[in-house]
């Protein structure tokens, strides 16, 4: 077959295969819509916590009011620890606070009263929020108390304000100001989705090709076959890359601070590596139905071995080696740095070169496998 004939052959078989079309068109769009769903509410508010007030003083009521007014917390009153614990058990509250008897009196007498904070740490990402919200509120209260107390000793308000703490801890959250989960997960997951759907699509196409070849050994040129599939899938997924990063990010309100030219270059390297892996993967599959399950099973292990959820420093090196066989590891790492953290191209140089190298290796692998197929 000539190159033109090969190309049309590949084109015809790709688009007449419902499974491929479903995956590379329906799948990508569906995942684009589905994956961000849990995280649409950018920040989490109204965490239900219980409050038990044994003091019932003006101060304790002020503290309750202050806590209830924060958007992060929603307070429910309980009479005792036992019923509050039952509330946690029944999932009505996630934590509770106990204000002890004589709370206000102790503060007035320079005694340190103790507030009891019971937290359900089963879902411990919630713990962080509760503690944060609580501490902020308590510290604010603390300052106000001190001002009120010290004023009675005829000190000026400014003197007192300075008296409160040695220094201000000023926390600046970089790259993701609101600690938005969308910002955290979506940039990485979208890249992974592109790779996985490409792998499935090219896997089904390649497996189907192998099945047809087994039935009737037609003549083909491996190079023509490889380039044809590169063009077909490459164009589609280059479009998807632009769609995800252009429209997709804007749609979900994700930051974009990367240089478009650098992003494009990096994107092309990632595309090349993924196309090559897809080509190689397709060439080794005996049946087209093997593609979807094999790729599916690799998804969750891959997500966690990349190092953006669980840090690289804590992942055993042999697991990292597993992740290095996939373009997504270098792709996501480099892409996050370029687009979300404003890194320079030099900083992602290693990722860039690795992607191109990987692409070359898998290309060679696909060529060898297809050539061997002819020899048999």
């Amino acid at each position: 077959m000539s190159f033109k004939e090969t190309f049309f052959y590949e084109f015809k078989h790709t688009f007449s295969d419902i499974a491929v079309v479903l995956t590379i068109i329906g799948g990508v769009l569906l995942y684009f819509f589905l994956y961000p769903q849990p995280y649409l509410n950018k920040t989490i508010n109204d965490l239900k916590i219980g409050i038990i007030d044994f003091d019932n003083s003006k101060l304790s009521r002020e503290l309750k009011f202050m806590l209830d007014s924060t958007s992060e917390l929603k307070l429910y009153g309980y009479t005792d620890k036992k019923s509050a614990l039952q509330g946690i058990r029944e999932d009505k509250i996630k934590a509770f606070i106990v204000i002890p008897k004589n709370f206000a009196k102790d503060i007035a007498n320079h005694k340190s009263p103790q507030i009891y904070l019971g937290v359900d740490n089963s879902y411990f990402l919630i713990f962080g929020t509760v503690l944060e919200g609580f501490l902020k509120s308590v510290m604010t209260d603390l300052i106000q108390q001190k001002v009120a107390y010290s004023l009675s000793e005829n000190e000026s308000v400014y003197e007192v304000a300075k008296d409160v703490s040695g220094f201000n801890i000023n926390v600046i959250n970089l790259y993701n100001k609101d600690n938005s989960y969308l910002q955290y997960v979506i940039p990485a997951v979208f890249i992974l989705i592109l790779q996985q759907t490409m792998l499935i699509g090219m896997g089904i196409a390649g497996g189907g090709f192998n099945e047809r070849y087994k039935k009737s050994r037609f003549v083909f040129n491996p190079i023509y076959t490889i380039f044809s599939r590169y063009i077909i899938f490459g164009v589609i997924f280059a479009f998807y890359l632009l769609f995800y990063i252009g429209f997709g990010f804007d749609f979900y309100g994700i930051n974009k601070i990367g240089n478009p030219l650098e992003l494009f270059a990096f994107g092309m390297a990632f595309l090349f590596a993924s196309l090559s892996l897809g080509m190689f993967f397709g060439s080794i599959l005996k049946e087209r139905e093997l593609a979807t399950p094999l790729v599916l099973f690799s998804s969750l292990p891959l997500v966690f071995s990349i190092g953006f959820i669980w840090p690289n420093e804590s992942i055993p090196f042999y697991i990292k080696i597993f992740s290095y066989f996939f373009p997504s590891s270098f792709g996501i790492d480099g892409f996050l740095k370029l687009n979300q953290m404003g890194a320079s191209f030099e900083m992602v140089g290693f990722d860039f070169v690795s992607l191109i190298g990987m692409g070359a290796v898998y290309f060679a692998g696909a060529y060898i496998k297809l050539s061997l197929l002819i020899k048999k």
Partner: protein
Amino acid sequence: MFRAFLDAFVYETEEIKKSFYKISLLFILPFLSFFIIVTIFQNRVSSELPLGVVDFDNSKLSRDITFAINSSPTLKVINFHTKKEAFDALKSSKVYGLVVFKSGFFKDVATRKEPNLDVFVNSQYILIGKTIESALMEILLPFDVGIDVAKNMIKEKNILKAVSKSVPIRVENVVFFNKDKDYFLFLTSAILPSIWQIFIVVSVIVSFGSMYKEKKDKDFFSNGFVVPKILGKLFVYFLVFTLWGVGFMFYIYSKNDYYFAGDIGVMIVAVVLTVVSYEAIGVFLFTTGFDYARSLSLAAVYTAPAFAFLGVTFPVYGMGDFALFFREMLPVSHFTELFIKVSNFGYGFDEAIGFYMKIISFSVVMIFAVFRIKRRIKA
């Protein structure tokens, strides 16, 4: 009828033995996936996360604080001489956070000017960012308050009174369950079931799909007993995946120092019901078109995103309406929720019934599947 069930069971085991792929699906691949996940989280608490420090002050205070940060098992200090160096390191993820001591920091503290101590945290990696933030707060706050205590000592000349003047409210923090902020327990109890349900649905589709693709369905369903035969065919997978389910549960339980508030029997029943439901879903998905590859794509859309909807990494009360709806449609979300309630709160059979009902309700799709299979046989 029982004979037909048994014959189908034996037939299926023979089919599996013949196919390395099917053996992998049942034994090798699940093992590999589980192994990778538990190994990733084996360092159960995040430790030695690199944190940059730029010290333009070079006072005893800044050095004491830096030393305290480095002594924390969670953090590891890397010193930088310039801000540019430090920020570049942040961008390239060589460090996940940065503490900057301005020049004259100690002097300002001593003269009560209350200077800012800037702490930069990479929040693109939320989990890592939060870990660093809370570790830093724990270390820095005592310094902050300590200075206050020292100042008050001059006035009060009595350490107790000085302390209470600085910190009028103490917080006794009691954490129920997962005291050590153990990521392992927290995440694996969600990730492992998520992987498990993918295998159940896929294995069942592969079983039926390959049979129809190889045109063996006519022979298989010859001489009736359609339902017992379907059940017999599925029984192999039922056994294998129930064992996997009970297996990973015991594994998690053993890693939690064998602490399990409730009765493990409650969860074994849940495992059984979940396997049954996912098998029903798998057969149903296949019978929507009797297209092997297409039903696998459908299975992928349904099972792959499940982890995100479990409410473990992102709380349920923070999810929108569609997300909550989709979540309800996944048996694994009810399974995981029950698992946490049984292992942490000690939920008993009576409290688990609601969850059992939700999980098993999905198996009703089997009725449609059987109907479609029978109709195809007649055609």
